[in-house]
């Protein structure tokens, strides 16, 4: 069970046919031509059958077809709105501190019943680097990385300054990610 050093075979010897280029051109054409014909047939088949799975090409027709994201995917950070309609966030400011590019700004306030909530919660989408450290820092599971990756770019940076209303999403929509955090990130695999 040790690593060994091994010389690579540098002295690639070429046969006469390979040396006069013809053989190589033929071989190259056969390989690429095989791809060409295979993809041609499969594309036509998918046009006829209308089934995108028939297309042997890995490209996705993006806006019409969506990629299948893994559950670990980190998209736009979102705030969780609890079932009772209130923010889960208690404005403790941990995400604000944990954020490496410092894109989160929170102003906390107190509800009449004594619970804390964020009066304003601003996340600068132009600065966010989607690292997911806010999600890990949050003790309340109030900010999570949603699988949402669309509409993140704007022509104006001002439009990318998301406020609380733009960030709040009902809990059931983020259930997949919340489950993932509990199961894969902080379950028995993590004491």
């Amino acid at each position, binding site marked *: 069970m040790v*690593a060994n050093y091994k010389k690579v075979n540098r002295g690639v010897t070429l046969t006469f046919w390979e040396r006069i280029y013809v053989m190589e051109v033929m071989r190259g054409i056969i390989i690429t031509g095989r791809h060409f014909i295979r993809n041609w047939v499969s594309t036509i088949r998918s046009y006829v059958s209308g089934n995108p799975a028939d297309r042997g090409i890995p490209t996705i027709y993006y806006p019409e077809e969506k990629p299948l994201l893994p559950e670990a995917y980190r998209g736009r950070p979102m705030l969780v709105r609890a079932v009772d309609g209130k923010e889960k966030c208690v404005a403790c400011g941990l995400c604000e501190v944990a954020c490496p590019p410092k894109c989160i700004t929170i102003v906390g306030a107190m509800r009449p019943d004594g619970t804390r909530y964020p009066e304003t919660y601003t996340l600068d989408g132009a600065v966010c680097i989607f690292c997911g450290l806010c999600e890990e820092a949050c003790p309340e599971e109030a900010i999570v990385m949603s699988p949402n990756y669309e509409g993140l770019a704007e022509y104006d940076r001002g439009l990318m300054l998301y406020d609380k209303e733009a960030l709040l999403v009902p809990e059931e929509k983020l259930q997949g990610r919340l489950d993932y955090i509990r199961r894969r990130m902080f379950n028995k695999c993590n004491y």
Partner: protein
Amino acid sequence: MENRHQLDLNTELMVLNMGPSHPATHGTVRFFIKLDGEKIIHMETEIGYLHRAFEKHCEDGTWSKAFPYTDRLNYNSAPQNNVAYALAVEKLMGMADKVPARTVYIRTIMCELSRMADHYTNLGAATLELGALTAFLYFVEARELTWDLIESVCGARLTSNYVRIGGLASDLPEGFAGKVKEVFAKNRVFWDEFDKLLTKNRIFLDRMRDTGAISRDDAIAYAFTGPCLRAAGVEYDVRKASPYLAYGNVDFDIPVGTTGDNFDRYLVRMEEIRQSERIIEQCLAQMPSGPININDAAVRNPSKEEVKSNMASMIFHFKNTIEGIQVPKGEVYVPTEGSNGEVGFYLVSQGGGKPWKCRVRPPCFALTQAMGHMCKGSFLADIIPTFDMINLIGGECDR
């Protein structure tokens, strides 16, 4: 004017400014070339177009906040940089041997996956710039599949931010071993096709062989590391010289070249892809079960239930996040084998939650330095394969 034919023909030297926005320089480097006809008389390299103040940023934040920034060093193989940084911090904290075995194996797998992705990209890009676009896209397809694997583990393709001090961000997803097997089966086909398209192709051979060569002694003097050093015939690989992670427990070959030209670099990288597959397969077979984080409340992030239910956990969680993980005073240099060469983190701690200094030894900084030396006397067209096989990653070189 020592060259005789220059005297005879009274030729004029031509000054060319190649880059920073030139198709072959990827927008991050500038070559200042003096040409005699098509022959390079003198070449100067200018870097720094992608400087992002990595060290200053790291010094500004806590220890664990540096992870997203390490992603952006060599963005083709981000998990490797995460691992290198984590290893350095763990060593500085003196808890290197307390990291769970499962974590060690997962880290090894991620390192090798990213090495594969990096080599796929690099070899593909090299052939792209030599004009063989089709071979490039076959390897890009292979790389995409590899990145899909990385994405399914880390949650992002490039900016993985996967490793934590003393552990990992998350465990491997279910059915990972099966997915790896599937992807490897597909990638082997691409590897074979790429190999058939290029390795014995005389046009490609003529472009790669004996171009951009550097002698063994020069390579050492220029502090080459990684595939470029091994291509020059030097048997040095951090994985072998000072085994870290699980590299001591797996069986693999380290390809070594002979003359240090571009063709040797190409062959070494091609073989390393194969060997990385071997390492990953062995790691998956040996994969132990168990926790993925170190059992130390002062280091790891507790689970959310724990934070809510346990006062001590909550205090540690807040302290770790706000003040940062406390690292004792000291300094450490940890070398790891990145896909380009030795990625070493030199960390200085003055105690407390922030790094006093976080220096990364960028492998391609040293490699790019030798570009002028390697290209002198060769043709203008030889810059392209040489520069590609050096594999300059702007993010790593300029930091």
